[in-house]
């Protein structure tokens, strides 16, 4: 049996640290051992940062001894996806091309985590170039789902999902261009937050897509995501998309109540084509929301299939532009990513520009939703985790491409730039995790996190 962290949440671990019932060094050593024990099973990490983690933990203990604890993440073992630059530590972006890349600077997210006293124990495994959802990486092997190692963890932040689900760390950073935080959260049974566009700096992350990339945490609970976002959010002049919008206080209230909340239930698209167990789990969450005082409001969300098509045109075009400098090294790319990059090369520029024009129309139209409701409740993924190597999946008798099925409920909110949280919604008959998604208006992460935490209470 692998070691796991002895605490279920960041708040619980923080309380023990501040009460000095455990030291940051002790906690870090448990986390490092858990990572080592789990690695042969899940392959969740690409690199460990043991020496620096223990040095950082020693410094945290000295600060705690002086009564200093600058943030809720102080002394908490965390991990970051290998897309985030770490000064002096290899940052491969899951690719052969960057296999020996050692950045000379930290990503903004890494800077903020360190400044808050979080202990970064390592770099989590991922889809090659964060471009895809299987984490079946041709260069560094597949990441495996801790709930069933024959299945994918989702992606592209699959190592982060696996590390949190396996109890190795209490938070792991991911990036999300078309669901890459929320899909692994759903398949691995964790929470995962894609914040509003501009809320968390992208500085120090190799872009996959200049207008769809978002950075955010995967953690056991929405409350943990909230504590993490408190540290991560804020203006960064080094990121052109970074927002000066005020940073909220994100921690959900201790008392789970949804009195006064209007929770939108989309009347089209989001409740169609779901695995029956996932539909039943959503129904249970709706009942719980009502029991906690929320009002369920049927709401028209417009043409989400169109928004998904727009998102795919934008992603194919921007990703191929971003990675074009490396495309002469075809043999160094995996087949899945290469096929996507080649697709982007053949799309006309007119399609890309028109996709960005249509995006504006849909962003404007979608604002009407927030006149009727405070948030939306949907499934995150229509299925539980597929098998490693599985290309097609059967949903209600219809065969769907695994990649398109897994992204169809999440991609639209990257296009719209809205905050979206995945929460665990239970286990299906095969003991596989299922996920539900809560979406809010821009910069209203506070509502999304409060609703998510209440529904998990």
């Amino acid at each position: 049996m692998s070691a796991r962290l002895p605490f279920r949440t960041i708040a619980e671990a923080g309380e023990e640290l501040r009460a000095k019932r455990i030291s940051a060094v002790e906690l870090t050593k448990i986390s490092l051992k858990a990572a080592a024990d789990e690695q042969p099973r899940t392959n969740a990490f690409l690199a460990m940062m043991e020496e620096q983690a223990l040095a950082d933990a020693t410094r945290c203990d000295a600060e705690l001894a002086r009564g200093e604890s600058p943030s809720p993440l102080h002394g908490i073992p965390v991990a970051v996806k290998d897309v985030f630059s770490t000064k002096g530590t290899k940052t491969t972006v899951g690719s052969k091309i960057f296999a020996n890349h050692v950045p000379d600077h930290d990503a903004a997210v890494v800077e903020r985590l360190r400044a808050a006293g979080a202990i970064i124990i390592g770099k989590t495994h991922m889809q090659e170039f964060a471009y895809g959802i299987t984490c079946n990486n041709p260069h560094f092997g597949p990441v495996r789902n801790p709930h069933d190692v024959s299945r994918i963890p989702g992606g592209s932040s699959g190592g982060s999902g696996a590390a949190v689900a396996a109890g190795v760390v209490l938070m792991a950073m991911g990036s999300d261009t078309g669901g890459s935080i929320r899909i692994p959260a759903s398949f691995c049974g964790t929470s995962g937050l894609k914040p509003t566009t501009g809320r968390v700096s992208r500085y120090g992350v190799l872009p996959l897509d200049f207008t769809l990339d978002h950075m955010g945490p995967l953690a056991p609970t929405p409350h943990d995501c909230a504590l993490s976002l408190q540290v991560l959010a804020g203006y960064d002049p080094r990121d052109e998309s970074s927002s000066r919008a005020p940073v909220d206080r994100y921690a959900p209230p201790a008392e789970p109540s949804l009195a006064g909340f209007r929770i939108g239930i989309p009347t089209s698209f989001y409740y169609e084509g779901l695995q029956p167990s996932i539909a039943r789990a959503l129904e249970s969450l709706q009942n719980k929301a009502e029991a906690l005082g929320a009002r369920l409001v049927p709401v028209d969300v417009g043409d989400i299939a169109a928004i998904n098509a727009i998102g795919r045109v934008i992603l194919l075009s921007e990703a191929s532009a971003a990675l074009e400098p490396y495309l002469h090294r075809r043999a160094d790319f995996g087949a899945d990513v290469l096929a996507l990059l080649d697709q982007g090369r053949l799309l006309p520029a007119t399609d890309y520009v028109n996709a960005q024009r249509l995006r504006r129309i849909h962003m404007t139209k979608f604002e009407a939703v927030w006149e009727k409701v405070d948030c939306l409740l949907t499934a995150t993924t229509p299925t539980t985790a597929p098998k490693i190597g599985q290309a097609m999946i059967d949903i209600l008798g219809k065969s769907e491409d695994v990649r398109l099925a897994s992204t169809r409920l999440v991609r639209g909110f990257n296009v719209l730039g809205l905050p979206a949280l995945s929460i665990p919604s239970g286990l299906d008959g095969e003991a596989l995790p299922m996920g539900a998604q809560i979406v809010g208006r821009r910069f209203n992460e506070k509502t999304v996190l409060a609703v998510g935490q209440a529904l998990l209470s």
Partner: protein
Amino acid sequence: MDHPQRDYRKLAAALAPDIPAAELDRVVQPLESLEAAFRPLTAALADETEPAFTVRLSTEWPA
């Protein structure tokens, strides 16, 4: 507005001749499906519709 389906094999030959013939199916088929879903949407575009992200020079730029 009717659009003739693009011939992505000819486009590949002209724009990306380095794509091996054996890999073309993995490239062409998804593009044909995406085109069928996407191009009809452009009928909704008014002449004055701007892209979601536009260039706006301000006194703050460049920093």
